C-alpha cells in the first residue's frame, strides 16, 4: 500500500505542476542556486558592534539571567550560581561528558554532582536540582543559545527535564546572526535552540515564563 501511495502522490505532483503551467527546469539544484537572496547576512556587523554585548542584552530580554564573566572567573561564577540554586532546590546537578573539569574547580561543599552514566531514567532527571552545560553556538541578534548535544552538552533529555539550566557561552561561540550560526552547525546532529526559559503565549497571547522546559535559565558568558 505504501509504495503505491508514494507513486500516486509523486505522479499527482508531476501532473499538478504541469497543469499549473510550471515547467520546472530539469536541474533543481542549479535553479535553487540561482534564487535571489537579497536579505542581509547579519543585521549587526560584528566588526563595528559589541556582538557579545548584544547577545547578553537579547538573551536577558527573555528573562534569562545573564552575566558576563572573565574566562578566569568562570569557576567562581559557576560555584556562586550553583550555590544559589542549591539553596532553593534539593538534588544533585548533572554534569555531561566533556564538561571541562576546571569549570567545577571551585564548588563549595554540599553541592553534589551526578553523571549521566549509565543514562539516568527520566524520573531521576526530574529529581535533579539542575544541569550545567556548555553550548555549540549562540546567536546575538536573537539572544539564542544552540545546543548540538555534543561534548559538554549531554543528550537532549539532560537539558530538558531538570528545572534549572546553567549554560556557559564562550564569547567565541557567539555568531552575529542566523546565517552565520546555521553555517557553523552540522545538520546531522540533533539541535535545541533555546531563547529564554520555557514560556507560553497560549493565554491571551501574552508571553509568560514557565511551562515544561527548564523554568530557570542562567547564562554565563565567558570572555577572554
Amino acid at each position, binding site marked *: 500500500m505504501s509504495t503505491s501511495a508514494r507513486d500516486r502522490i509523486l505522479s499527482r505532483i508531476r501532473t499538478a505542476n504541469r*497543469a499549473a*503551467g510550471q515547467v520546472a527546469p530539469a536541474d533543481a539544484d542549479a535553479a535553487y542556486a540561482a534564487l535571489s*537572496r537579497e*536579505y542581509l547576512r547579519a543585521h549587526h556587523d560584528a566588526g563595528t558592534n559589541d556582538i557579545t554585548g548584544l547577545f547578553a542584552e537579547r538573551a536577558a530580554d527573555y528573562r534569562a539571567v545573564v552575566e558576563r564573566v572573565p574566562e578566569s572567573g568562570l569557576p567562581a561564577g559557576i560555584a556562586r550560581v550553583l550555590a544559589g540554586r542549591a539553596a532553593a532546590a534539593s538534588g544533585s546537578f548533572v554534569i555531561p561528558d566533556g564538561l571541562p573539569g576546571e569549570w567545577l574547580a571551585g564548588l563549595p561543599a554540599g553541592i553534589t554532582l551526578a553523571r549521566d552514566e549509565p543514562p539516568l531514567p527520566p524520573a531521576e532527571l526530574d529529581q535533579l536540582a539542575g544541569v550545567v552545560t556548555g553550548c555549540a553556538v549562540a546567536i546575538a541578534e536573537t539572544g539564542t543559545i544552540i545546543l548540538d548535544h555534543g561534548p559538554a552538552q549531554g543528550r537532549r533529555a539532560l537539558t530538558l527535564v531538570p528545572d534549572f539550566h546553567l549554560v556557559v557561552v564562550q564569547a567565541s561561540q557567539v555568531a552575529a546572526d*542566523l546565517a552565520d550560526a546555521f553555517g557553523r552547525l552540522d545538520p546531522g546532529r540533533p539541535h535545541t535552540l533555546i531563547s529564554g526559559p520555557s514560556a507560553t503565549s*497560549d493565554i491571551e497571547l501574552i508571553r509568560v515564563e514557565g511551562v515544561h522546559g527548564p523554568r530557570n535559565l542562567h547564562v554565563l558568558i565567558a570572555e577572554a
Partner: protein
Amino acid sequence: MTAPGQPGQLAAGEPHPGMPTYLGMPSFPDAARIAVADSQLRANLTHATHTIRAKRAGAVAELADWEQLRQAAKAIKDHTLAHLDTYLLRLEENVTRAGGQVHWAQDAGEANAIVAGLVRAAGADSVVKVKSMATQETGLNEALAADGISALETDLAELIVQLGHDRPSHILVPAIHRNRAEIREIFRTEMPDAPAGLTDDPPALAAAARSHLRQAFLSAQVGVSGANFAIAETGSLVVVESEGNGRMCVTLPRTLISVVGVEKILPSWRDLEVFLALLPRSSTAERMNPYTSTWTGITPGDGPENFHLVLLDNGRTSALADPTGRQALRCIRCSACLNVCPVYERVGGHAYGSPYPGPIGAIISPQLRGIADPVDASLPFASTLCGACYEVCPVAINIPEALVHLRAKVVDAKREKNFSPERVAFTLSGRVLRSPRLLAAAQRAASASRRVVARKGRIRLLPPPLSGWTETRDAPVPPPESFRAWWARTRGNRS
C-alpha cells in the same frame, strides 16, 4: 481509501475524503451570526489580536530587510513546489539513510491508519502529542480513539481545548477564544489534579499544566508530532515551539511519529536562516521562539530509537494544480493573517468550520476539501478583501487574489449544481453593512478589485457586500474612490 479526484479540479460532486468538516457545522454565515452575538468571545478575540498586532509590527520593523526576507521565502517555497517530487524523494532518501522510516499517505484515512498501526506495533495504547495542524486536519485523535488508543494533547492551548471539550479556533493559540478566567474554570472542573485555590494568574495556570502533564511525558512510549520544516538535503525535521512540550514529545518517547504535509519541505539547511527569521516574529512577535528542535533520523543514545515520517498529501496536490490557488501551499502557519483580519476578529475561528480558520483557512480549506460542502463553498466569501492578510504574510501569499479566484470557482460550480452563493454572501454582508468600519474596508476592497475582476469595463463578481448584486447582473467598474473615502479625504479632517 477513496481514490482522489483529478488534480486541478475542485470536486463539485463529492465531498473530499480527507478533512472532515466538523460534524454539524453550519456554513460560515450561519456560524458567524451566532459568534458575532457572543460578546465574551468578541472581547477575548479583540483583546488578544490587538495585543499581538502591535507587537508583531514592532518585531518586524526591527529587521530592515524584512521585505527581502519575505521575497526570498516566497522564492524558495515556489521553487520547492515546482520541484516537489525531486525534493520529496531526496528527503525520503536522507531520512532513511539517517535511520528513519518514511511512509506516504494520500489522504487522512491512510495517514491515520499508518499512525495507528505504528502505535500498536510499538506495543502502546497511548501517545503524547505536540500540537500539529496536519493531525488536526486528519482527525487523528478521533481515529486513534476508535482504535482504542488515547492521544494526550500537551500544548497548553490544545490541552485547554481538549479539557473544555471544545474545538481549536486559532492556528497558533487554539484556545484564543478563552480568557484566563474561563481557563481557570476549565482546569478546576476538568483537571483532577488541579491545585486547590488555583488563580487565574497566567503563570499559575501554566504551572498547573506543567505538573498535570509531567508524569505523562516521563512515561510516554510514543510521541506524535508534526513539523514546521523538513529539510530535503539532510533529512532533518524542525519543530518550532514555546513551552518545551514539543521537546518532550520528540525526545523522551522510544518511538516518534511525525505527520508532515508534503508542502512543509525546504531544499536545504541554510534556508532556516530565512524561515526562522520570519516565523517567530510573524507568529508570536518574538525575535525567536523559546525552543526549536531539529533532528535527523535516529541519534544513538539520544532520543527515540524509532523514527517514522508520514508524508501527507490530503488534497495538497489538488491545490498544487491550481495556478492561482497553489500559493496557499507556501503557508508556514504563522497565523499573522488571522490576527489582523477584521472578519476573524469578529467571528472567531469556529465559524470557519475547519482546523484552518481566518484568511488562510478561507483559501486552504476549499482547496484541500473541495467546494461540494456549503461550509467550504461559503469560505471564500468570509472576507472583506481589505488586504491586511497579504500585507503581513511572511511568505507573501496574495490571499485576496486567491479569494476572488475561489469565489469565481464557487459561482461556476453553482451553474452545475443548485448552490446559492448570493444567499451566503448576503448573510455575511448584512453584518458588514451594520459596521461602518467594515463597510469602509469592503468599499476600499471593491475599488481595489477593479483591476482584478473587471472585464471590459464590467464586473461579473464583486466581493461582499456587493456580490449579491453582481450574481444576477453585471455592474459598472466602481470609481477608484468611494464617496465615503472621498468625503474622508476632502472634508473629514475639517471637523
